[in-house]
């Protein structure tokens, strides 16, 4: 569909003499000179000047007369005006197609929206408005939008300084605007265009990516919400995959048990067990150290896997302890008689397990004898503490699992933080009641 070129009429600007094309002849009421900005009455056969402006014509991102196809319709930009509400300013291009009528192309902060005027008022539902099957929440109210600059042709008598009272309702990607003055009310739905759409249609720069510190448009959907929604299924699948790997690869096998005994406050005991054969590659080892009869004392347990061939040593340490007593609150106990050690990445080979243990007694129960070597009193006559070591190939590292879960969650969590920053900046502009949970939930919706 293309407009019939015979509908284009030219006339001379009575102010500067420039040739002006009137592209919607028959519909256009007011025409602004592209060269000097003078407003001309298009209905007057003598092209009467309505208002004369000598200010410099704005350099437009879309020169008037440019044609572009949006949503399957070829539009021609015939008018341009700049508006401001005192806080923000934006530009509106009037698009025309003789078969489809008029549309507005609204540009603000590098974002572009396509506005369609409604022929029927939307349905009110509480504070919300329902139009075109979509629910809109109130956002801006009682602002006055004032025309600050104008060029091209329009279907009403537009002039600089013209004011309307504007109320806006939003949902992600859409804005429903009510503009009213003393004479009329008009409703417009504007839909945010993607960078690809506006670039393909009118070859303008795509909208800039949002960064913290930039104020988004009221109806700009959070780019992070879309990512978050797309990522959660992937994160869930990855988590389930990790669980499967944890179950499949975290087991232990071929346990071997060794035991030894140490006297509390007695000499350190060192004993070598083995051989422990690791046939393949690198693997983890799990050592469970249990001291079933330690009481009122502790046992230092140093274990070392020593490669018989290279004498490389892989060490780990456990502290088993048990204390108990009676006080005004009753019986108490603390300490753990069992520790599980995990030694990572042992190369294949034949190992000896070298165990050094020393048991100690705590407190004043039992009998004590003076030890000349250390110059202290030590428990005497206490039964030896038994140490049982169970060594198995393999280990289940929960730390690896949680580290992987954290790495999977870092990108969505980063997106969540950016989404919150984005929505905070968007909702901070809201007039009336402060943003509530519904506003935040609406921010997660898709356009």
């Amino acid at each position, binding site marked *: 569909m293309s407009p019939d070129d015979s509908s284009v009429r030219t006339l001379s600007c009575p102010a500067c003499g420039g040739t002006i094309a009137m592209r919607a002849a028959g519909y256009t009421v007011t025409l602004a000179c592209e060269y000097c900005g003078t407003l001309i009455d298009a209905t007057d056969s003598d092209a009467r000047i309505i208002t004369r402006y000598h200010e410099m014509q704005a350099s437009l991102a879309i020169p008037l007369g440019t044609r572009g196809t949006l949503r399957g319709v070829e539009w021609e930009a015939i008018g341009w005006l700049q508006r401001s509400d005192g806080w923000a300013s934006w530009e509106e291009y009037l698009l025309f197609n003789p078969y489809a009528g008029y549309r507005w192309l609204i540009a603000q902060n590098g974002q572009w929206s396509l506005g369609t005027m409604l022929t029927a008022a939307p349905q009110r539902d509480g504070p919300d408005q329902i139009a075109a099957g979509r629910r809109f929440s109130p956002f801006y109210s009682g602002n006055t939008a004032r025309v600050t600059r104008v060029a091209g042709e329009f279907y009403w008598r537009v002039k600089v300084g013209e004011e309307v009272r504007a109320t806006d309702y939003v949902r992600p990607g859409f804005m429903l605007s009510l503009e009213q003055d003393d004479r009329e009310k008009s409703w417009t739905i504007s839909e945010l265009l993607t960078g690809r759409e506006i670039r393909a249609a009118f070859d303008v720069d795509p909208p800039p990516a949002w960064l913290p510190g930039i104020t988004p448009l009221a109806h700009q959907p959070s780019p992070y919400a879309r990512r978050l929604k797309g990522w959660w299924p992937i994160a869930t699948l990855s988590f389930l995959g990790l669980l499967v790997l944890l179950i499949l690869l975290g087991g232990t096998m071929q346990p071997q048990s060794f035991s030894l005994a140490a006297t509390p406050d007695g000499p350190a005991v060192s004993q070598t067990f083995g051989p422990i054969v690791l046939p393949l590659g690198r693997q983890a080892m799990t050592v469970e150290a249990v001291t079933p009869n330690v009481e009122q004392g502790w046992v230092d347990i140093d274990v070392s896997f020593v490669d018989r061939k290279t004498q490389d040593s892989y060490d780990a340490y456990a502290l088993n302890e048990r204390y108990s007593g009676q006080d005004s609150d009753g019986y108490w106990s603390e300490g753990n008689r069992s520790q599980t050690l995990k030694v990572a990445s042992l190369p294949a080979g034949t190992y000896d397990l070298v165990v050094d243990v020393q048991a100690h007694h705590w407190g004043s129960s039992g009998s004590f004898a003076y030890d000349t070597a250390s110059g202290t009193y030590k428990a005497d006559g206490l039964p030896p503490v038994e140490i049982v070591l169970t060594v198995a190939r393999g280990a289940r590292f929960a730390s690896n699992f949680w580290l992987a879960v954290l790495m999977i969650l870092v*990108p969505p969590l980063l997106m969540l933080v950016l989404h919150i920053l984005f929505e905070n900046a968007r909702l901070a502009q809201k007039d009336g009641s402060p943003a509530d949970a519904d506003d935040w939930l609406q921010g997660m919706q898709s356009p």
Partner: protein
Amino acid sequence: MSRSSFLYALWCIGVLGLYLAAASQGYSPFADGGRTAGAYRAYGPTHK
């Protein structure tokens, strides 16, 4: 699938691959092995 979802899926596959590699090598940055030298040892009950 959007480009960002594709990249995130690649990231997750990479994490799973790293986990699998660590599990097959019996590796963990938080293993007890080799901890003896720097281990802090405190003895005795903390009960008050």
